[in-house]
């Protein structure tokens, strides 16, 4: 197999691995997202603290996984106090 054959899904797998490093190292510092490759589709889900962080994650994913279909389901953390407490008898 030549280097030129190393394209398509294999190459996408490596890009996915590098995406994780990029998200950890970059200003977003996000390690807690679940990112998966499904053929030519990439899914990203998890929780981030702010709208800015979500936009940054979406921007980086689109950049690194360019050419693949990216689907995101990133929710914002709920910063409200709890309405109940768990009793531990």
């Amino acid at each position, binding site marked *: 197999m030549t280097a030129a054959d190393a394209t398509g899904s294999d190459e996408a797998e490596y890009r996915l691995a590098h995406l994780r490093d990029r998200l950890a190292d970059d200003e977003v510092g996000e390690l807690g997202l679940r990112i998966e490759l499904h053929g030519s589709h990439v899914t990203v889900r998890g929780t981030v603290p702010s709208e800015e962080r979500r936009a940054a994650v979406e921007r980086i994913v689109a950049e690194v996984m360019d050419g693949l279909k990216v689907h995101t389901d990133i929710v914002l*953390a*709920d*910063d409200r*106090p709890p309405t109940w407490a*768990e*009793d531990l008898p």
Partner: protein
Amino acid sequence: MIRVAAVGDIHLGPDSRGLLRPAFATLDELADVLLLAGDLTRHGTPEEAAVVGEEVGGLPVPVIAVLGNHDYDAGRPEEVTRILASHGVQVLERSSTAVRVDGTLVGVAGTKGFGGGFAGRSAGEFGEPEMKAFVRHSRECADGLRTALDRLAAEGCDLRIALTHFAPVPDTLAGEPTEIHPFLGSYLLAEAIDGAGADLALHGHAHLGTERGLTACGVRVRNVAQPVIGRAFAVYRLHPPVG
């Protein structure tokens, strides 16, 4: 009855200043102590630590924390600890502290902890120096936790809480890919908690995990990573033993 508020993995930075303060300001009505289970910052820079300090500084309840792996990323954990301390946060690492709440002495033993995996599927202190160093760090964190819990027992604490960033059990990792469990926690922490005894074990780190678990000897474990608890903090009511 003691009300323990806890949260981990808040990952604050300059753009999140003031985000959690409104919720923390309600703590005097909801809890007696606030415990922070690490990953308070994104990269552990002094600027980020200052934001955390401002969010939790001057609260009406004691604030006790451990650091997480993110808080070590910039290589300045001592500075992060100093900045948090200057805002009144007590940062534990293989150490303990006790607070008295209405006559009940509540002890908290803390360590960041580390990975290595869970019983039967864990890394051993064997082979290359890098591998030995990895597992040794995990063991030293666990040993420090056990010593700290033992110390709290000797000091006569009515309730003892183990506070870590990494997970002591795999129960609370459900939802995380099993392949990464060895990077999320270590059975050594659970062994230390069961060996010394505790009334509750709190951890963070596993954003995609679940809230509730149990050690082999029945100590309740709660994953308080903010994405898991789905609110600014969780509150647990503990009851000191009678008599």
